[in-house]
């Protein structure tokens, strides 16, 4: 096998620290708060959208994606400040996407605190890749 990293294991592995219970507790909090916030924003925004656009149909919704105006950070911030319903719909979707990102950040923190450099580097790479998709690849292929 060319990959020495996957060769048969030595007889006595080095001791490995377990992630503290606090890491699991924090991760549960991230998941619950992230999901609750996203659902609350999406629910409020979709009800407001329905009240503002009673005549909207499936055809009109598919023809004009309201999110397109709020894909930039400054446009989204301005839309949120102005109370724009599509901006809040965009925020709800972003909160759903952000929840796993926060999970990764949380994991990186605990691996880093435990001195586990390889896993810290792996989680940092995953986090950078997630941001890359949202901020670079998506806009490039739009």
């Amino acid at each position: 096998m060319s990959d020495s990293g996957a060769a048969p294991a030595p007889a006595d592995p080095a001791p490995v620290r377990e992630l503290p219970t606090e890491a699991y507790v924090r991760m549960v909090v991230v998941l619950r708060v992230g999901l609750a916030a996203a659902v609350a924003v999406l629910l409020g925004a979709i009800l407001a959208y329905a009240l503002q656009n009673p005549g909207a149909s499936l055809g009109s919704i598919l023809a004009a994606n309201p999110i397109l105006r709020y894909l930039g950070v400054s446009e989204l911030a301005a839309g949120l400040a102005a109370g724009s319903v599509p901006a809040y719909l965009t925020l709800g979707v972003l909160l759903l996407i952000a929840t796993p990102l926060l999970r990764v950040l949380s994991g990186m923190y605990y691996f880093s605190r435990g001195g586990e450099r390889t896993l810290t580097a792996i989680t940092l790479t995953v986090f950078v890749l997630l941001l890359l998709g949202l901020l670079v690849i998506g806009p490039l292929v739009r």
Partner: protein
Amino acid sequence: MGMSVDLWTLLLLLAVTGVAAGLVGSLTGLGGAVVVIPILVGGFDTSFAFAAGTGMVTILATSSTTGAAYVRDRLTDLRIGMFLEIATVPGALLGATFTIFLVHADLENALLIALGGVLLTIIPLTLTRRANELPEPRSPDARSRRLGLRGHYHDAALGRDVSYEAADTTPALGVMFGAGIVSGMFGIGAGVFKVLALDRFLNLPMKIATATSNFMIGVTAAAGAGVMLAAGYVNPVLAAPVAIGTAAGAYLGSQILPGLRNRTVRYLFVPVVLALAIEVILRGFGLA
């Protein structure tokens, strides 16, 4: 346009679709998008790209809802999950990008046919999951030992503590990369493929494999969803009611019906997925 209903009815129908997806997702360990995407394409005349974007949002809702319970019970192996995300996330970015290129090239029908093929592949993999909880012991590889890819949990059903250690990490990383591509391309969780890698290559107990797969599904979907959102292929008016319904359905599934989470549910799931697969394949060939 196939469906002409008023807005409130439309939102209700989308939310009901989400509830069904959330229930299926939490009961079978799949993301639920395998139900949402064919229904959006077949029932709501949504283009494949927007259906896939909505599917990714569905997965995020399912994964966050059911994932919290798994993490709380320490059935999710965070170390193994985060290690494997180094393969699934690049795969998802590649898959989502490829899908956008195919959509720009007017090849959505090819994507539908391929999605049908993936759904048909999921069926036997879902049915042939290992029946017994614990695998036969196998030696871990050096990478697994070096990174400490091992753990233990208390199995209430077996009435004892169970220890495990990941076995063959290299093939698992390869399968995870492929699962990431499938997830990014089609907007589905590809949990079946992830469980396959965690079970057959890493040799993990089934509870750990299922919970860790659920954890990874969310992060993989976030990668694909980020690309699809920034590319303008997530329509929040479609996605919001589906996501809310999915979260409610997944919560119901995990809280009220845990007794159904067994092989019977998987058998009930087969005709649904089979019908949806046939529907998208026929659509892909312009026959529906």
